[in-house]
Each structure stands twice: as C-alpha cells, then as structure tokens.
C-alpha cells in the first residue's frame, strides 16, 4: 500500500548507474524527502557523481562524510570505498568494513541499515547494474513494510541487478526511469495518481 508519509528514498545501482541517476535527478523537479544514492564506484574515484549531478538539480547534493546529518531535501551520494550506514539520530555513519558482494559501498548494507531506521517509511529503488548487490537489501526493505521499486530491466543498460532484485523481492513496482521520476515527484502528495504506474 502506498503511504503519504515516506521519510527517505534509497537508490542502488552499478554499471550504467550514472546515466540512470542523471535521468531521474534531471526529471525530478524537487524532492521533499532525502534521496540517498549508493553506486558502485572504482575505489579511486572521488566526488565524481556529486559534481556531475549538480547542474541538473536545485536540491543540495552532498557526498556523504561521517556524521553528516540527513536533511529533508538533500541528495546524498555514497563515497567510494566506504559503506554507508544510517543512525537512529538521522546522521550518516561510514565504515571501512570488508567488501560485501565484492563492493564497498554495498547496496545491501545501506538498504538494510536504512530499513532498520526508517522501517515502513522507506522507499527502496534498484536500478541498472552488473551484479546482484541490492536484492537482499530490497527484500529487507519489503519485509519491514517499505515500498520497493525496480527499474524495468527491458530499459536498463545492465539487466543483471534489476533482474536479480525482481526475482528475489517481487517488488511493488517495475518502472522505467521517467516513471520513477514521475513517481518520486508525486510521492507523499495528494495529486499523486497511481494509474500512471505499471502495477506488477
């Protein structure tokens, strides 16, 4: 069931993620709740996605550092080589624990941590990607009552990650990138019209 009081959105992606994220952010005119993006990155890339996204949005974009507070309308990017965790006090914690699914940041780790804090107030989105990281985390979100969305694999640059998530989770919605933007734009609002979404 779609609620009207979601508190945060977590997005996971790897291969092809930059283009997918850009499309979503570009089409999203404003966001009233925080969006946290976990993309697998080469360990030496730094602040890249944050810098890249800046021209496309009016929202404040942050690369996450330890203890950064999570604010209402920020867009937050996980830094390369750190896992991103969520504190009950609504601040980010980083960790340099071992890689998970060969990845740091790991989408599963962030999704699980966010889900423990936000429970059914969380929206989890899995986009294009070349490994299965994110499926377990999305499943966790679903079990805690959160809303789950997966990018339509037919339109994804890399189908592996969305397919793995669909197989494991049976997400609430499978959507194209523009539909995801539309969805996020109308999230928590009265004029929101679910008809425009492909229900699965």
């Amino acid at each position: 069931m779609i609620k009207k009081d979601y508190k945060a959105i977590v997005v996971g992606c790897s291969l092809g993620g930059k283009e997918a994220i850009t499309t979503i952010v570009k089409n999203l005119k404003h966001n009233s709740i925080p969006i946290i993006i976990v993309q697998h990155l080469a360990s030496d890339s730094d602040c890249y996605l944050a810098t890249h996204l800046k021209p496309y949005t009016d929202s404040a974009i942050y690369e996450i550092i330890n203890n950064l507070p999570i604010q209402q309308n920020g867009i937050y990017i996980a830094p390369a080589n750190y896992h991103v965790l969520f504190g009950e006090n609504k601040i980010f914690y980083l960790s340099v624990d071992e890689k998970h699914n060969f990845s740091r940041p790991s989408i599963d780790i962030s999704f699980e941590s966010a889900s423990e804090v936000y429970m059914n107030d969380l929206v989890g989105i899995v986009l294009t990607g070349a490994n299965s990281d994110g499926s377990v985390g999305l499943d966790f979100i679903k079990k805690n009552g959160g809303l789950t969305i997966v990018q339509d694999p037919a339109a994804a640059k890399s189908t592996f990650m969305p397919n793995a998530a669909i197989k494991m989770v049976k997400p609430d919605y499978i959507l194209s990138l523009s539909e995801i933007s539309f969805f996020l734009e109308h999230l928590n609002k009265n004029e929101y019209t679910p008809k425009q979404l492909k229900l699965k």
Partner: protein
Amino acid sequence: MTLKDKEKIETNLLLDAIFHCYGYDFRSYAKPSLKRRIAHRMEVSNIATIADLIPLVIHDKVFFNLFLKDMSLTVTEMFRDPSFFKSLRDEIIPILKTFPFVKIWHAGCATGEEVYSLAILLKEEGFYDKTRIYATDFNSNSIEIAKEGIYPIAKMKAFTNNYNHTGGKGSFSDYYEAKHSSVKFNDSLKKNITFAHHNLAQDRSFGEMNIIICRNVMMYFDGKLQSKVLSLFLDSLCNKGFLCIGMKESLIYSNLQNHFEPQNIDSKIYRKKASERIELKKHKSLN
C-alpha cells in the same frame, strides 16, 4: 514493544555484560556498525537472539575472543589514500624536519599496514632516525600481526600501486622479502616503532606527540566517544601538533573543532592551535 525496542535492550545488556566481565567498553560505539557486527557473529555462530549471546560471552572466554575479533575487524591497506601520504611527504614532513626529534602516535593501527607505510615514507625523506612511532590498538591480536609485519603477497600489487602514487622514491619491493605466499617487511622499518596495547575508549594520554594519525577509527564511535577521543588527542598533542583523520571524516561536527585549524583540508590534516594547551589547563583547573 517492537522487536526493535527489544533488540535495543538486548544490545545494552550485552555491552554491559562485556564491560563488567572483561573491561572492554563498547557502549559508546556507533550503533549501526555495532549492530552489523553483532548480527554477523549471530549468523556465523548460528545464534537466534542477541540475548542468547549474553551467557556465551560471559561464560565462554573463547567465544568472547571471537566477538572481540569481530569488533575490531577493519580492513586496511598500505598507503591507503595515496594523496594523504603524498601530503605527509610533501607538506608535513618538511615542517617536522625543523624539529630535532619527533614523536608520532598512530592510534588504532589495526594490523599495521599504515604504520609500515609511514615508516617507509620517513625513511625515504631521510627523517626516520629522528622519530619514535607509537603504534597502538585495543586488539592484542591485531598488534601481534602488526609486530610481525607479514602480509599476503596477493595484496602487494595494490599496495605497490598506492605507493607509486605517493611519490615513492624507491622500488616498493626493496622494503620486503617474499616467501611463499606472503611477504615480510624489513626489520629496519620496525627499529623506531613501539607497538602497544591502548584502548582509545578508556586509556589515557601517554606522552606529548608532534603528530597523531587516527584514520577511519573514530567513525566507529558515537558522538560522545568521538569527543572524548578528540580531547585525548588535544591533550596529547604539542603546540601546533598535527592531527590526521580519515578522508571521509571531519571535525566540523565536533564541539572541539575550534581547537584545531585545517592544515590540508583535502587530506584531512589538522593542526592544534598554539594557545590551546594553556587554555585547556586553565579550563581544567576551573573545574
């Protein structure tokens, strides 16, 4: 009462039990990573609830040691963040060289990779013989590994790549000897390093340092413990001494940030303000 509330109670009981039995105080660790580590131990040892961990931890020392290992299991590498080590080499070591002798505290050195990196850097800059490095960690197992200086050969490719990005002046392979599947770093690197057990959460200052390196350690602590550790560092630094923290850590959320000034903000190197020591003492005597 929700499951989440119950888990909070169980976690607090577990941490209390550990503190009272063994003296290790994890009560001020950041909860998100603490939770993950507890969950990891439960999964590996096939334990259903956090509460079930409590008798095991209390009565089974071997099991407690496993838990302790989980708690300090961080992944480190040599010359991690090459740009940081390059800043040390190009900017900080030339300043340190103006002193006749320099004391360095590597706090939370884990298995020692970054300590050997530092030793190599100091050697190449011709300053090693005028330094004493205190490398400390709360985990005795990690300290033993650090003392050995033996690491898997499989990691050398990545370490060499990092080294080359720090403006390395030699050949990285000159610093170790390979044997079978591991390498041992030269004993000459250890000559001025003192490896010791020290728990940042509980232990005190043990000397006046010119530079303290504590990277990716405080991120595992909650705000209160971070402040406590920062004030320990403030107390342990000489006037204008340097503090190096992790590349994604910051002092801006700390109430002690005003006691430091940025030296190289990209590399997260700070400098203690000159007058602080006096003010701090004054402040203490007032209390």
